[in-house]
């Protein structure tokens, strides 16, 4: 009996190694086949379930991946390895979701990320990615809900607010969060910019005051929203503060050109080119 068991476990180890090698090589299908064999042979090994969870996720089966993860946790509830595995798995789900978004497979991304936020409801990044997946499908209300969930989990993380940009104005709940954020972070250009969008108050954009590119976000927004006079004023202040900031020169050139100020546009175009030209 002991001999048979050893044989079975040896076989599982071989499958595990084969599966991990396939995972490293990026071959999710081959990895999954090997690791499913491994877990059949050693179903009481939590590590096997962690590995198979990874393979299932990479081959696009998020729900079964989570089931494998849960199985690992059940087998070793107090194991630090399993805890670390769960944390890594949450990140991995985010990576898979982002990868699917990059490949413009928004529905598949959403499927993975819905499972992800259900399994890891306290991971703000997963909610943010879910918001992106929903936004990319034009489901704006659901996207706002997801972004708000992300923001509530990590209210001081500025980048989480960025996803809201094209969804604003989105209502009082969002406005309250943005107001709270800028109150706590008065130097946040993004915060003021978003609050300005939410309230429809361009004046708030001029409160943006960070980094060497003071005024840039506000000026750029004004440029895009066809408020040339105010945009020129702010952009001229941007380049006065940071004479090497190329994008501001090009935006200025565009605005000068549309205002018929050809000499100024010409100078701004040349300065932009001087700053950006490089050997490809």
């Amino acid at each position, binding site marked *: 009996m002991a001999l048979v068991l050893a044989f079975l476990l040896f076989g599982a180890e071989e499958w595990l190694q084969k599966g991990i090698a396939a995972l490293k090589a990026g071959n999710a299908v081959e990895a999954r086949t090997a690791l499913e064999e491994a877990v059949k042979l050693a179903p009481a090994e939590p590590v096997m379930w962690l590995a198979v969870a990874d393979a299932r996720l990479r081959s696009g089966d998020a729900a079964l991946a989570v089931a494998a993860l849960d199985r690992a946790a059940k087998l070793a509830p107090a194991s630090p390895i399993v805890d670390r595995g769960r944390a890594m798995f949450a990140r991995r789900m985010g990576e898979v979701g*982002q990868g699917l*978004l990059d490949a413009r497979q928004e529905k598949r991304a959403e499927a993975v990320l819905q499972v992800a936020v259900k399994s890891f409801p306290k991971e703000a*990044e997963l909610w*943010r990615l879910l918001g992106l997946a929903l936004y990319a499908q034009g489901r704006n209300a659901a996207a706002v809900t997801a972004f708000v969930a992300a923001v509530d989990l990590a209210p001081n993380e500025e980048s989480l607010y*960025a996803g809201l940009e*094209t969804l604003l104005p989105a209502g009082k709940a969002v406005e309250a969060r943005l107001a709270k954020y800028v109150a706590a972070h008065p130097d946040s250009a993004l915060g003021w910019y978003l609050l300005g969008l939410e309230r429809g108050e361009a004046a708030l954009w001029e409160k943006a005051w960070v980094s060497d590119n003071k005024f840039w976000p506000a000026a750029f927004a004004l440029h895009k929203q066809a408020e040339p006079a105010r945009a020129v004023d702010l952009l001229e202040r941007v380049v006065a503060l940071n004479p090497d900031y190329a994008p501001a020169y090009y935006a200025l050139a565009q605005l000068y050109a549309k205002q018929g100020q050809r000499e100024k546009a*010409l100078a701004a*175009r040349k300065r932009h080119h001087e700053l950006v030209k490089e050997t490809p």
Partner: protein
Amino acid sequence: MTAWLLTGLLLFQGMGGGPRAAKPAGGPKVASPAFYLREVPLGLTAKHRYGDGTSKYILSMTGNGVAIIDFDNDGKPDLLFNDGVAPVLYRNTGKAFSDVSPTSGLTPRPWGQGVCAGDFDNDGWTDVLLTYYGASRLYRNEKGNFRDITPAAGLPVEGKRFSTGCAFVDYDRDGLLDLIISNYVAFDLSTAAQPGATKYCTWLGLEVFCGPRGFPTDRPILLHNDGKGKFRDVSQTTLKGITGLHYGLGVVTADFDGDGWMDIYIACDSTPGILLRNNRDGTLTDVAVEAGAAYGADGEELGSMGVAAVDVDGDGRLDLVKTNFIDETPSLYRNLGDWFFVDATQESGLGRDSTAVGWGVGVLDFDMDGRPDLIMANGHIYPELKAAYRQAKSLYWNGGGAFSTLRTGAATASRGLAVADLDGDGVAEVVVANMNAAPSVFKVDGKRGGSLGVRLEGTRGNRSAIGARVTVTVGGKTQTDEVRSGGSYGSQHDFTLLFGLGAAKEAERVEVRWPNGEIEVMGKLEAGALYRMKEGAGVVGRTAWR
């Protein structure tokens, strides 16, 4: 996700990065009449071959152009495709096309790229240049048979130059067509890195061919025609101000400042575009940066492939339209005169679709309302994307103030595109070269007005009349176009120009400015026919539309 995030990245470096979902569309929405792109079977059955269907080398990406020329002077436009293995020539029989490649005199050669046409020896037969990775080939048309005269013309017969777009152009107004050829990257197949080898060999996590970034750049070549059958490379002394930091692709020639001297634009991938202003002294200077036609709307380097010169707003000045990579949109540089362009992509409506990798671009008037519309051939560069590799065509209907957009037609991995009235009915068809597939011919169906066609023959200048400008006035409004070689992406549109007349029965005035600057006014011309005009002799023939 938005321009804020793209251009404001500096603010958020190290903060986890911005989101990377699809960029939303921008620009005005214009309601357009209904148009339908209908593919017509015309016997173009040869499946083009280009690369092995993988993205191992950048050489597998660029694909082929198409020229629409009347090589046998029977009055019907024929089709010449460059190809990865051997060029394909189709003769227009009037009802369909017949593959006459084996008897054409065109020789098989690998890695064909673009094609352009012009009667460089003024014998009345249209000659062609085919560009290659290797050495480009010049074919003289000898009464309908092509003969490779590359060595006799003094051009290199071997090499490793990655030549792409080209155009015949009489830049010095000596009555002889010269040649401009763009070059892409300095590439050596024997030493090229493998997919994934460097940071320039991945895309969104995929291991793909390397480049163009990471490869050395190359410069365009200008070849002067001495009138005795020889072409001489005069690039060093004639092309001024080119930095050498360009990956050149599509070429278009046009008189952008209306001075009667031909200028040149070269669309460049991942580097600033080149706008060569003709100095009227036998030299040309790159003024793209100062003119505002080098970069995208936010100052970014675009992945530009194809290019067209077109007067979109009827002000008599030729504007520039470019096709670009995915996550960018096509570009429109509006020509304000005196070598000053302004990026009008967003307000024109061309900035609404960033989901295509654009290549060939054609100008035609879908509804013959007198305003030029646009069609673009699309297709991704990585075959590994499978379904996403193939993309539908983009149609842009000119509503006067702005364009409306329509993505339509079967999804293909397309490259070259050229337009011509293939069947003599007064409406242009669209010919598209597809990667590793047979080419396509489309008609744009929908309600339309009347049209007239103009076919020019030079006598004192070049016989193809390349560089001649035609201005047609209808209902007090003018349309301006030019006979040109090259254009689009490595392609050649037909030399015949078509003008939409809407409901008008005639054009009030048709004016031709010949390449040497002389102006001939043809007066009123009725709609519904192709007019043949000869330099110094006015209208010499009229053929009613079928």
